[in-house]
């Protein structure tokens, strides 16, 4: 039987790991908030649980997906980051999302840096793109801080997006 394993690893402050059922209340809370509009929300509890289930399924279907970002000390859910390449995607994308409490602490930067390095060295995705909504200036700022640069305007699932291109990091990591 074919199966899949979700790799887990940590950074200074964070653990990048598989989703857990214990994360669901916080995931549901995030998707209920207006903050989630950038990732298809707001969603109800049922849809939020499906979003969690999809993360597992993408690992099975593609061999890559998102990790949940957890606080290394408390294991509390802080967001997710990783590689997604669904139908309608031009190519593999590095994505990141953090809950409000994790904002302004460089958590998304730390997690996305680690995920990008892992994807480049372990999964074979280097020099990937990130889709960023034109109005999402925080994410655009983070993309630039990660060394990515604006490449073109694009479209994803009916939304206008900006495509940022990350530098190749495989050799450096």
């Amino acid at each position, binding site marked *: *039987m*074919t*199966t*899949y394993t979700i790799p887990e690893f940590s950074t200074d402050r964070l653990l990048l790991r*598989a*989703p857990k*059922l214990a994360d*669901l209340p916080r995931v*549901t809370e995030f998707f209920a908030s207006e903050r989630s509009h950038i990732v298809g929300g707001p969603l*109800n*509890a*049922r849809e*939020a*649980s*499906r979003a*969690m*289930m*999809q*993360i*597992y*399924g*993408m690992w*099975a*279907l*593609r061999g890559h997906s998102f990790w949940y970002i957890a606080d290394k000390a408390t294991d509390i859910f802080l967001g997710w980051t990783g590689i997604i390449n*669904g*139908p*309608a995607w031009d190519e593999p994308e590095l994505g990141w999302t953090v809950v409000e409490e994790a904002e302004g602490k460089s958590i998304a930067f730390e997690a996305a840096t680690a995920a990008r390095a892992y994807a480049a060295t372990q999964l074979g995705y280097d020099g990937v793109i990130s889709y960023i909504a034109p109005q999402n200036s925080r994410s655009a700022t983070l993309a630039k801080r990660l060394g990515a640069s604006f490449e073109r305007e694009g479209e994803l*699932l009916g939304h206008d997006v900006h495509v940022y291109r990350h530098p190749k990091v495989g050799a450096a990591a």
Partner: protein
Amino acid sequence: MGHRDIPELVSNRLVLKAPLPEDYPDFKATFTSFRARFMGGPLNPYESWMLYAAEIGHWEIRGFGMWMIHDKLTDETYGMAGGWQPAGWPEREIAWIIWPDKAGKGYALEATECVRRHAYHDLGWDTAVSYIDPMNLDSIRLAERLGCIKDKDAPSIDGTDAVYRHPTLSQLRDTQLGHGIDMEISHYADPLFKPKGWALD
């Protein structure tokens, strides 16, 4: 129990296995078609892919989920059947979907009965329901052939679906109902038992 631990279930003509990436094209063909109209579809390619991912992920979250239905001899896939309970589901559901061009051969009946047997005997479930769109006559008919009775008192998912309650293990064990279901499954190749007059897809 997660995806890697999914047991294989065997019935007369079928083997139920873990849903795998290579099985996805048939799933997509069904869920992007009119066939999916009672299950939130037709879906676009992105939605269909994400739903398939969720079907796999359900195993990790709940420890049970949907199996891929294969022909025992040819390994061809016919649809999916299994247990389903994402957040917000009032209770554990037994669900099924058959690819449109494989319907009418009793595969859903055989596979779903096999899943129910496993749920009762191996997972220790004492009851289960199926949530069905009231306009989905094919599925209501199948639920009735499985011995289900409409449970008007049980909570539905969102008020638009009908709740069909499955018979318990004791209602199936060595009873007329149980024997009748076994007999229909064992004789399904006989066209005499083919339901007539339902939707053509």
